[in-house]
């Protein structure tokens, strides 16, 4: 028998140990834990409810692996590809972590699909759960944004061209399309500014929003309570409840562990590829987005030309609005899927069309000889690139030589005088300035030789105040020192 108890009953409090008592008096953690773990689930724990926790777990995994990858990654078009290559080929566990991160994105998409399907099928959006549903819609959009922005960061051929196409689609939006595209790209063309923008979105903006919306989603979920099986009333649950802990927690953890295990196995045995560095002048490259965006890509091929505005912008927008409005449109208390044919069948048809478009795209690429050959070449180029050892990036040598040696004997003499005198102690060894005194570099542009010589022997009040000692040099030495000062550029 699952323990039929009122959600608010305080029986079965877990016993509290000594150190826990110490902590509890200071934090109230005990009741917080009870609050978290004793969430009542009408009708008891089920495997069908594990997807939400699985998503949270995957998100955490993405955050952790993402933070670690950033230890080596540099978001600039000069270095991004080299650093990802370094991570993949040189750093211990680098390829494994990068693969976990890249496959984690795919896993999140799959779990999002399962989570949404379960919610739609069970009618769990009913019963004052509109905001819960809407926050979920935002989370879906944010996650799709994460997938899109993260894709560019490795800056290989695939990343560059897929993003070029992806950002081209944005310019189709009426009126604001062009400026929006330029805003996202940081200019009319893709370049290093695009990479910076995508990096900022992927690493700061979207994760921040994700965390906020996840918190809201979880809060609203707890406020509304678990919906339970589909014969349960959405507003006034009647079924006997079971607490979240232990059964549902165990199920959630087992599911999360299976996900992690699957991810780790795939990442270990089939690590992700990094292709050759983006070559912006390559006209033969055929970009293909990640599998979950492939149907959209195919759809845009179908609706090109005069249908592009309707098919590419208006229809998807309408569908998205319709999807977000489901709890407002389907308001009845009936939750059994066979009694709600419009929503369930509508979703099923959409999924079937989406999958169909993906299949068509896949088939077209295989049947067109030229495309198939080019895609095979591209795949082979990635495999070849992964086999090559890491190429260290050579930096141009620093063009500013160390000012130890100079050709002009007068300046050389001045250099020696500057070194002998205590000048460098305040003005810096090479006149670069310190906290004690200003830089002397460029002083030759401000004063003529005569003015400099005069200043050396007749200090201004400001120089005296700054602690500059009197300079005691004969004419020849003064000329040499002035020549040196004027050579500081």
């Amino acid at each position, binding site marked *: *028998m*699952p*323990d039929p108890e009122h959600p608010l009953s305080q029986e*079965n*409090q*877990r*016993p509290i140990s000594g150190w826990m008592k110490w902590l509890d008096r200071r934090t109230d953690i005990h009741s917080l834990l009870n609050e978290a773990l004793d969430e009542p689930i009408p*009708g*008891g*724990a089920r495997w069908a409810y594990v997807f939400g926790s699985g998503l949270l777990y995957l998100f955490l995994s993405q955050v*952790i*692996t993402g933070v*670690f990858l950033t*230890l*080596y990654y540099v978001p600039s078009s000069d*270095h991004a590809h*080299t*650093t990802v*290559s*370094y991570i993949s080929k*040189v*750093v*211990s*566990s*680098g390829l*494994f*972590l990068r693969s976990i991160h890249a496959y984690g994105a795919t896993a999140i998409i799959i779990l999002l699909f399962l989570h949404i399907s379960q919610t739609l099928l069970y009618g769990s959006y009913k019963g004052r759960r509109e905001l819960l549903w809407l926050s979920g819609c935002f989370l879906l959009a944010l996650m799709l944004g994460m997938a899109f922005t993260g894709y560019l960061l490795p800056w290989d051929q695939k990343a560059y061209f897929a993003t070029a196409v992806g950002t081209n689609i944005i310019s189709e939006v009426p009126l604001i399309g062009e400026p929006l595209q330029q805003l996202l790209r940081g200019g009319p063309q893709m370049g290093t500014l695009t990479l910076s923008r995508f990096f900022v979105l992927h690493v700061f903006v979207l994760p921040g929003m994700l965390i906020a919306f996840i918190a809201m989603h979880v809060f609203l979920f707890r406020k509304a309570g678990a919906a339970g*099986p589909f*014969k349960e009333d959405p507003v006034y649950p009647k*079924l*006997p409840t*079971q607490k979240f*802990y*232990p*059964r549902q*927690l*165990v199920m959630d*953890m087992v599911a999360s*562990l299976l996900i*992690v295990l699957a991810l*780790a196995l795939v990442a270990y045995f089939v690590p992700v590829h990094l292709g050759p560095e983006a070559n912006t002048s390559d006209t033969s490259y055929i970009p293909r987005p990640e599998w979950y965006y492939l149907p959209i890509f195919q759809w845009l091929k179908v609706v090109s030309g005069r249908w592009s505005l309707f098919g590419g912008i208006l229809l998807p927008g309408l569908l998205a609005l319709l999807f977000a409005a489901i709890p407002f449109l389907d308001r009845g208390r009936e939750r059994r899927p066979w009694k709600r044919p419009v929503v369930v069948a509508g979703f099923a048809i959409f999924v079937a069309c989406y999958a169909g478009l993906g299949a068509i795209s896949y088939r077209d690429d295989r049947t067109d000889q030229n495309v198939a050959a080019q895609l095979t070449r591209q795949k082979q180029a990635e495999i070849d690139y992964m086999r090559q050892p*890491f190429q*260290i*990036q*050579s*930096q*141009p*040598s*620093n063009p500013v*030589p*160390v000012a*130890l*040696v100079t050709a002009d004997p007068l300046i050389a003499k001045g250099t*020696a005088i500057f*070194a*002998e005198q*205590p000048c*460098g*102690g305040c003005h810096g*060894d090479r006149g670069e300035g310190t906290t004690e005194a200003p830089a002397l570099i460029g002083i030759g542009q401000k004063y003529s030789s005569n003015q400099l010589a005069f200043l050396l022997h007749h200090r201004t009040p400001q120089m005296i105040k700054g602690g500059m000692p009197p300079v005691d040099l004969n004419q020849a030495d003064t000329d040499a020192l002035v020549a040196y000062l004027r050579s500081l550029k």
Partner: protein
Amino acid sequence: MPAPAHLPEQMPVPVPERRSFLGLLLAAAGGLVSATLAIPLMRFATFPLRVPSEEASWSDVGKIDEFLSLAEPVARTIDVKKIDGWRSSVVQNGVYIVPTGSGNFKVLSSVCPHLGCAVRWIGKRDKFICPCHGGTFTNIGVHISGPPLRAMDELESKVENGILKVRFQYFRQLVAKKEPVG
């Protein structure tokens, strides 16, 4: 239609001990998995600490003929190639070629063994002087006065095809013994 809340195996009404035991088990399992996942993360983060420090590379100083009949130390700037993570960079360092009599010479690092300022050759006084804290050395780099605890650091050098080459290294500062760092 599933029956209400009847799971394949029935949970007995949980008694406190059992629940806390389960909690312990859960924590242990979670801890084990986290620890396993932490291994690649830690290896990834600590990778730079395990990269064997590279052999110091040889840099060209100049044609050997220039240095066979020196009257006093001369300064030269050398390009030192360094592996810096995922890039190789070229840094410039100053060295002194110091005559030691009868056509021989040695190569000294211009880095002061006290705190790393660039030591200057002051020909007029026939000594090396460090501008930062006033350390002085003879014309062959032997310590005379001031805070440095040892002589100027000699660098390994060799001649190949008429070119003088030197292996630039940094040495630990503020100690009496010359020991290379990094």
